[in-house]
């Protein structure tokens, strides 16, 4: 068997793949957080719960409506985004004039409510979700076995991330969005309906989280707590990357996933904590984050 640095290549590439998958989820989640934070100035603690709700939505669609993975990919983000829009209109909209930390506290409370309700209903053990038939099986690349579904997740999330980047940095709507992030009142004075834009932005960020949840459902099991620990890691990712740049968030997400995967190979004891350790180092060297600006 071939080895690199004393590690079998199979194990190395296997963990690298898992790292890339985790990185894909980190990237999509931190992207959503960054977009929401940019316009709403709120850190959305419910993000993890909304990721979980995306996965559950896919599960419900399959169990009760017979709609498979591809339909879920479309319906679940829209459905969860709709609940997000209701939350924004009814609750978050009342907090914009207050300290930003109230938004964090409110969304934390909402996350507890959602996770508690789903746990009451479905317990803490996971529910299985089948990989769609088109993507089951895998390819043998010679140096490793690549399951088709995992390859799909990496490619699809990259496309989603880049599309988001394009929409924000290169389209007219994105230009409005960036302008409103800089100066909300001025953009409103130009005749843009900023409150509606804020609502839709929140919905979009939440939808991204739900989309990540649907994509995660066949890999991890569908579990009420699947987003609870993930959101804390994503917070660390956001601190490391800084929330100033879209491409920065994508790069940081994927990069940290890979680093975490490699840690599992070379020093498994630290794999849970490596991202937090990196956060500490980044805070010491560049407090604003790798791609962030002090503000």
């Amino acid at each position: 068997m071939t080895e690199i640095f004393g590690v079998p290549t199979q194990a190395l590439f296997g963990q690298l793949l898992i790292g890339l998958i985790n990185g894909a989820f980190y990237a999509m989640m931190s992207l959503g957080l960054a977009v929401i934070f940019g316009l709403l100035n709120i850190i959305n603690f419910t993000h993890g719960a909304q990721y979980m709700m995306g996965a559950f939505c896919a599960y419900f669609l399959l169990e009760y409506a017979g709609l498979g993975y591809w339909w879920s990919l479309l319906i679940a983000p829209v459905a969860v985004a709709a609940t997000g829009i209701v939350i924004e209109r009814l609750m978050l909209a009342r907090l914009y004039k207050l300290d930003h930390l109230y938004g964090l506290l409110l969304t934390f409370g909402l996350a507890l409510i959602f996770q508690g309700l789903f746990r009451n209903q479905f317990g803490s053990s996971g529910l299985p979700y089948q990989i769609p038939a088109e993507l089951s099986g895998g390819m043998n690349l010679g140096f490793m076995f690549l399951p088709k579904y995992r390859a799909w997740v990496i490619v699809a999330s990259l496309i989603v991330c880049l599309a988001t980047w394009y929409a924000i940095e290169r389209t007219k709507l994105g230009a409005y969005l960036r302008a409103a992030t800089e100066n909300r009142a001025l953009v409103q004075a130009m005749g843009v309906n900023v409150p509606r834009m804020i609502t839709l932005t929140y919905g979009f960020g939440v939808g991204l989280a739900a989309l990540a949840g649907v994509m995660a459902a066949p890999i991890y099991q569908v579990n009420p707590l699947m987003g609870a620990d993930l959101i804390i890691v994503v917070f660390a990712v956001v601190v490391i990357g800084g929330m100033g740049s879209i491409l920065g968030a994508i790069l940081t997400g994927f990069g940290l996933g890979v680093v975490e995967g490699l840690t599992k190979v070379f020093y498994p004891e630290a794999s849970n904590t490596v991202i937090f350790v990196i956060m500490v180092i980044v805070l010491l060297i560049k407090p604003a984050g790798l791609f962030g600006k002090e503000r």
Partner: protein
Amino acid sequence: MAAPPPSAVTAGSDARGFATATAILVGVLVLAPHVGVYPVFLMKALCFALFACAFNLLLGFGGLLSFGHAMFLGTAGYVSAHAAKVWGLSPELAILAGTAAATALGIVAGALAIRRQGIYFAMITLALAQMIFFFCVQAPFTHGEDGIQSVPRGLMFGVLDLSNTLVMYYVVLAIFVGGFLLIYRVINSPFGNVLKAIRENELRAISLGYDAERYKLLAFVLSAALSGLAGATKAIVFQLASLTDVHWSMSGEVVLMTLLGGMGTIFGPVAGAFAIIAIENYFAGFGQWVTVITGGIFVVCVLAFRRGIVGEIGAWLARRRR
């Protein structure tokens, strides 16, 4: 982040009002176990009340929202339980060891976290606490999921037999009152006033020549130390140190106690801690509904009840006086 409460009594700046209210509070607590209130419930509530007061020192008076205070509670609990059980230290030394550990952790965590402000500060403290949580899951001396069990209560100062529940209760009460008075002293000292100035307008405080970072760090370390005192005491009382106390949900719980009681008020965290512990005791048999209710209280507090219980009482007192 807290709006200053409109009444001097609840803010703890009216010395006579504070003395009266504290005397009533302590009197009630001294008598409580004799009128049928379950002492174990009281001890649990008092430990959390001290924890919430320590947290409020940072949030209510320093304006810093830490979302990782469980790391101080839990670490101190583990260290004092280990010291009492494995090293065989007497309870007062075990509690001291736990508090010292939390203080040391507070210096490191505080120095890192105050490098960023606002929302980032909250996220960094949360991430650091999660790191400590994973450390506690893996470290051999914490015994993972089992925790450190059957910690001996022992003899305090060689004379007080803590295995007697009532003796234990009065020791906990004394520790709570000591911590509470210390916090009162801190927020009414020149240091506390500078801290409040930084909370209101950090840039102006800096321009007046105050080293804001040093004040924030000192407040953070004080808060960590007192949280550690609460955690160490709790470990001796319940003879147990477990992962629950380092988990992020515990960090959320102390935020909730402070928010519900009224942040920036001196008595608020005490009221909040008693209320939350009572609710949890009542709903203990209803599975995950506790989490749902906790979340619901969060939402209601943020949307409609931002002054909290004691803050509302203070506002009512202030209105009546006019």
